[in-house]
């Protein structure tokens, strides 16, 4: 009896303790959510502000309107947006193909140069990529892919060097049992058929993850994009174009326009991301950690 009572009490106590700790967890989560959301709510609200274009000390506009969006429409923003979208789309397709080739091979095949190749790429990755900008610019410039033609140039460079980022998807492929391949090989399938018919369907999460990250990358590409498209508005992407709006000589006129642009850029990417969030999580947990 007494023993039972004790357990009951302990049980009750635990429950109460749990409730209290849950309360604090909820409180903390709410605080965190507010902190995380605030900047995004602010940016949306400020994009509708009409009465002034510079930074002010309040958030809710005194006068609402679409002036800033109209201003966007009348600027080169359309071109930048289209450029970025093209780059993102092309990158999503091509980078995915390249990275999957790379990671699948390094995960599944055992050939003589595999070890040295992976070590070599690891070492390559330790060099700061920033410096190679100067020379990549020259190469692109000789190919005629700079300034007004920056879009194909940026796609080329982005895709060509994407093989280096194979770690995440290789980590994922490593988790698919090799016995599947072997069974299929015994049945007479070629390597290509194994990849196409057996592995790819299983690798759907990582394929979607790769597409998603490849698609999102170009939306934030600033430094190299500016280097390649310098001085030619028609070759800018959104980051390059909008960055200048926040420089000292323009911010007073363009701050709210930047907010509007930010909203327009963020909406499609965010929606896409949230829809595919599940795969993203599988990708990062399955691949990033084991890579």
């Amino acid at each position, binding site marked *: 009896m007494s023993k039972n009572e004790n357990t009951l009490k302990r049980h009750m106590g635990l429950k109460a303790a749990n409730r209290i700790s849950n309360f604090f967890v909820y409180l903390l989560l709410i605080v965190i959510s507010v902190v995380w959301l605030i900047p995004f709510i602010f940016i949306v609200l400020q994009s509708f502000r009409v009465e002034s274009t510079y930074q002010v*000390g309040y958030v809710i506009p005194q006068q609402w309107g679409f002036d800033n969006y109209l201003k966007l429409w009348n600027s080169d923003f359309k071109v930048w947006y289209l450029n970025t979208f093209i780059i993102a789309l092309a990158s999503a397709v091509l980078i995915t193909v390249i990275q999957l080739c790379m990671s699948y091979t390094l995960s599944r095949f055992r050939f003589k140069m595999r070890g040295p190749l992976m070590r070599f790429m690891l070492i390559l990755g330790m060099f700061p990529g920033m410096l190679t900008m100067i020379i990549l610019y020259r190469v692109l410039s000789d190919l005629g892919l700079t300034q007004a033609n920056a879009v194909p140039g940026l796609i080329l460079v982005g895709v060509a060097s994407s093989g280096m980022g194979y770690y995440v998807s290789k980590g994922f492929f490593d988790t698919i049992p090799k016995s599947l391949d072997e069974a299929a090989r015994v049945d007479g399938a070629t390597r290509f058929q194994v990849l196409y018919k057996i592995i790819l369907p299983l690798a759907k999460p990582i394929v979607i993850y790769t597409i998603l990250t490849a698609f999102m990358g170009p939306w934030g590409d600033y430094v190299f994009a500016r*280097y390649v498209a310098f*001085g030619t508005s028609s070759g800018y992407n959104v980051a390059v174009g909008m960055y200048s709006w926040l420089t*000292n000589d*323009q911010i007073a006129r363009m701050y709210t326009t930047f907010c509007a642009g930010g909203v327009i850029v963020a909406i499609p990417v965010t929606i896409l991301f949230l829809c595919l969030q599940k795969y993203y999580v599988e990708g990062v947990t399955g691949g990033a950690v084991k890579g």
Partner: protein
Amino acid sequence: MKKILALVMALAMMLMLVACGPAGNQESQPPQGGGEQTNAPQGGGEETQPPQGGADLSGTYDVTIWCPEAAVELTKTQVANFNSSNTMGITINATVEPVSEADAATNMITDVSAGGDLYFFAQDQLSRLIQAGAVMKLGQGAADYVKNNCVASSLVAAKSGDDFYAYPLTADNGYFMYYDKSVIPEEHVDSFEDIIADCEAANKQFSYELENAWYNAGVFFATGCHSDWKTDDDGNFKGIDDDFNSDKGLIAAKAIYKLVSSPIYVNSSNADFASGSAVVVTGVWNYATIKSQLGDNFGVADLPSFTVDGQSYHLYSYAGCKLLGVKPQSDAVKGAVLNQLAQYLTGKDCSLQRALDPVEGKTPDGNPENGGLGWGPANTEARNDPAGTNPALAALEEQNKYSISQPNIHGSWWDIAKVITTDIKASDGSDEALKAALEKYEESIKAVFDVTDEIRNAFTVIGKVNGSDWDVDFEMTNDGDIWTSKDAFEMEAGTELKCRQGKSWDVAYPAENYVVETAGTYYVQLNAATGEITLVPAE
């Protein structure tokens, strides 16, 4: 089978190589139209300076123009006007790109060949651009045009050594004071101390970007300090003559301390009135924004005077320019066309259009899209035109009486000189501490810019040598005290020359010009110990 892989890779690489091809072995084109060796004409005050001999410039030219975003539309209109109005048959097919004056030089230097043909830039970038070979030297006629049509203060900005490298576009890159009339009464605007007191009383800020050499140097100039730069014709810095670390400099340091030690000091030149400033020291570019922030309380004036030890000093500013640069061309005809266009764009009409008051909504052609920019013209006629002024420009004009024309300044100096204020701010304001800050500055300057003894002691040949007329120094090399010119010169009898040290006339031999007796090709040799010159015939 791995051979196939090797092949594919090699092929891909090679295709790229072939596509790029060698570009280094192209032949240089012979200079065009080099027949007449006459000097270019002395220009009059015409709108543009046509090249001599009525050279045919007609044709259609693709031209890329870089200008700040605000001026893009206006510049497009102006180019269209040039096409319809010029009598030389020139049609410009222009691409106008928004590139801010601050970025233009960096972008040009990134890749000169891909840069804009004409570009607006801030004058402090000129030496970088010359050094990078990114700006075309102006010919004799064009240089005369600039001399005859632009305000005096802008000329120094467009020059390096004795040569002009760019067209002055605006002469408004200076600073003065905007203030909030509700905080600073009209009678206080002349006194630095009164303004600080007013701000402190109202708990409003005083924005003065003293931690920036462009602003803090003005305080030193107010007390009579100077900081002069020497550049040669190639844009290289040859030295600095600077006395910030002096008794006069100490007075300036005290004035700086007065402000930076106050809680109301803000190191900024932005339009800060919305964030609690009552005074902002900045330039014409913030006029429209500040006007909209202050409304009826808008006030603008030249900088005030500060008082140290009973004596009053009016604060100085730099008077700087924006310039229009022309990219070096390998085709002389296109070069000439670009000169024509540059002269038109910096000419009276275009300057006036840019000058119109943006706040009043005045537009050059009635089209509200093409609002004036409020830029103060460098063109003399436009500057004197009453249509082209506004309150901010008027204040600038007033301040210009207390200003130093901004010369070409070495890029590193800005980073060094701005530290003076930081150090003063961190000090306790005692004379010793302020002096220490100035001494540190002088040491840093010396470490970077002092011309080495090697250069200071080197001798050069100067005179009517090699087609020059006492304006070019020819290098000499030495073996002990014996200096010999690097090149042999072909000289006629009666040619006069001298050898001088450190490119200055302080030490020059012989006292009277040396006169060549017999024509021939000689190396010039100097015995620095005796000052004797001998000619060594070249074989």
